[in-house]
């Protein structure tokens, strides 16, 4: 370790980020949106009724109540919906830090926090959010910096990652999704707004989370979350 000054810069950056985060938390994202389900025409209980979006020859062009909007989306709502299959991440590689670990799907723990695999050698993918390579939103993968089972895990160096470091997430079907590290932040757990990191809208990104900062012996936990954000590699 040769430079406390540079380390401080990183902390200062995280603090600056935190201040902005707090500001942004006043305007929570994720307003509800109504999804479309099944395209029209799959099953028509009326038997033969068409759903031509264009107006009939005798009718003038419908004046949409919403200026600038296109045709109103119409879907067949009959029946029930089954879950769309999601291909889960299976493996995470961040070669610059020597990370190459299996990924397992995790849930919400009874206390409302994200479930974290007991073994720090295994990372947990938040299964309610997007998967790697999704069209939008954040795929969140977290691991213990160290656990009872594994005193030192691969994620304990996460704050050493640099912008541009390549990351690969491989899905259970073998699909590899390539990312580049964009940023690493240290955010105090007491005030962190996790909303932006668990966002399901906006440009797709990969979010890796572990713990760092000061060890609080009373809480038996670190004070901070280390949050790495990566973007899909382009070109």
């Amino acid at each position, binding site marked *: 370790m040769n430079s406390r000054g540079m380390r401080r810069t990183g902390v200062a950056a995280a603090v600056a*980020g935190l201040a902005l985060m707090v500001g942004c938390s006043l305007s929570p994202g994720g307003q509800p949106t109504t999804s479309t389900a099944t395209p029209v025409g799959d099953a028509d209980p009326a038997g033969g009724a068409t759903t031509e979006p264009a107006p009939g020859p005798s009718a003038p062009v419908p004046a949409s109540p919403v200026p600038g909007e296109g045709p109103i989306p119409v879907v067949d709502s009959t029946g029930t919906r089954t879950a769309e299959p999601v291909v889960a991440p299976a493996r995470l590689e961040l070669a610059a830090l020597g990370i190459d670990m299996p990924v397992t799907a995790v849930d919400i723990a009874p206390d409302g926090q994200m479930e974290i695999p007991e073994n720090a050698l295994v990372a947990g993918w938040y299964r*309610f959010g997007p998967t790697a390579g999704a069209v939008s939103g954040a795929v969140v993968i977290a691991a213990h910096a160290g656990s009872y089972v594994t005193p030192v895990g691969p994620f304990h160096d996460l704050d050493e990652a640099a912008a541009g470091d390549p990351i690969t997430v491989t899905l259970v079907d073998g699909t590899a999704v390539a990312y580049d590290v964009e940023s690493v932040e240290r955010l105090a757990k007491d005030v962190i707004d996790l909303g932006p990191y668990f966002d399901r809208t906006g440009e797709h990104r990969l979010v890796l989370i572990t713990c760092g900062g000061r060890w609080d012996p009373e809480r038996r936990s670190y004070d901070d979350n280390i949050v790495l954000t990566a973007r899909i590699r382009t070109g």
Partner: protein
Amino acid sequence: MRKSAAALGGTLGIAALVLAATPATADSHTASLSVLHGVPDLTVDVYVNGEITLDDFAPGELAGPLELEPGTYTVAITAADAADDGAPVIGPVDLPLEEGRNYTAVAHLDAQGSAPTATLFTNDTSPTAPGEGRLTVRHVAAAPAVDVLAGGEAVISGLANPDEASLDLPAGTVSAAVAAAGTTEPVIGPADVTVAEGVSTVVYAWGSLEAGTLALATQTIEGLHSSPDGVPTGQVQVVEESSSAVLWAGAAAVLALFVGFGVRRAAVTRDR
């Protein structure tokens, strides 16, 4: 050390992302309206404020959501071949839509099946707890009051046309059936209903018991999810000289401001 300037840039980058992402979401200054056609055997046209808005709208179809300026909209539903809204089969009805709210207007049969009618439901889009989704059941069928059964037990009792009942459930699949109130013999289902996390799943029982056209329709509204309450990734302290020593040195430096010069010297020494 590999962080510093890059980390700073990246941090500002994500902050900018957050700011940019916020306006991309739905505009809360408008009202959101979906329209469900729940009258069997009747293809219609829907007029809003006298303008044809949905042409040849068929039973079971769900239109929208429309993002509308708040206000009262007059909706008339006519036969599909009507020249205008002068002789509606339903309405005209006034739909008062408030800013920031989410509605579904349903054209459906009344309980006796004697006449088509329309009901404006307000969709509960309040956040769901992490790991949970919302299941809402709406009775818009020509049928007496019903119970909704999940796993053979009534989870909603005595639901009558045009009422709704709602419950937040752990995300998963529910095998649901609809039976006459107080009975367990399904008149609809059982059918698998997915309750997705952070999603409002609205299931409509529509059609007519007498005519044998009872059916389910489903509407989903996304974006109700909450973040986990925390990410507790630090189970034990990682005792490892490289990173933790520097962190401890930083903590010690702060401590030195209060404790005195001797401690600060120790911190500087340890920093090497």
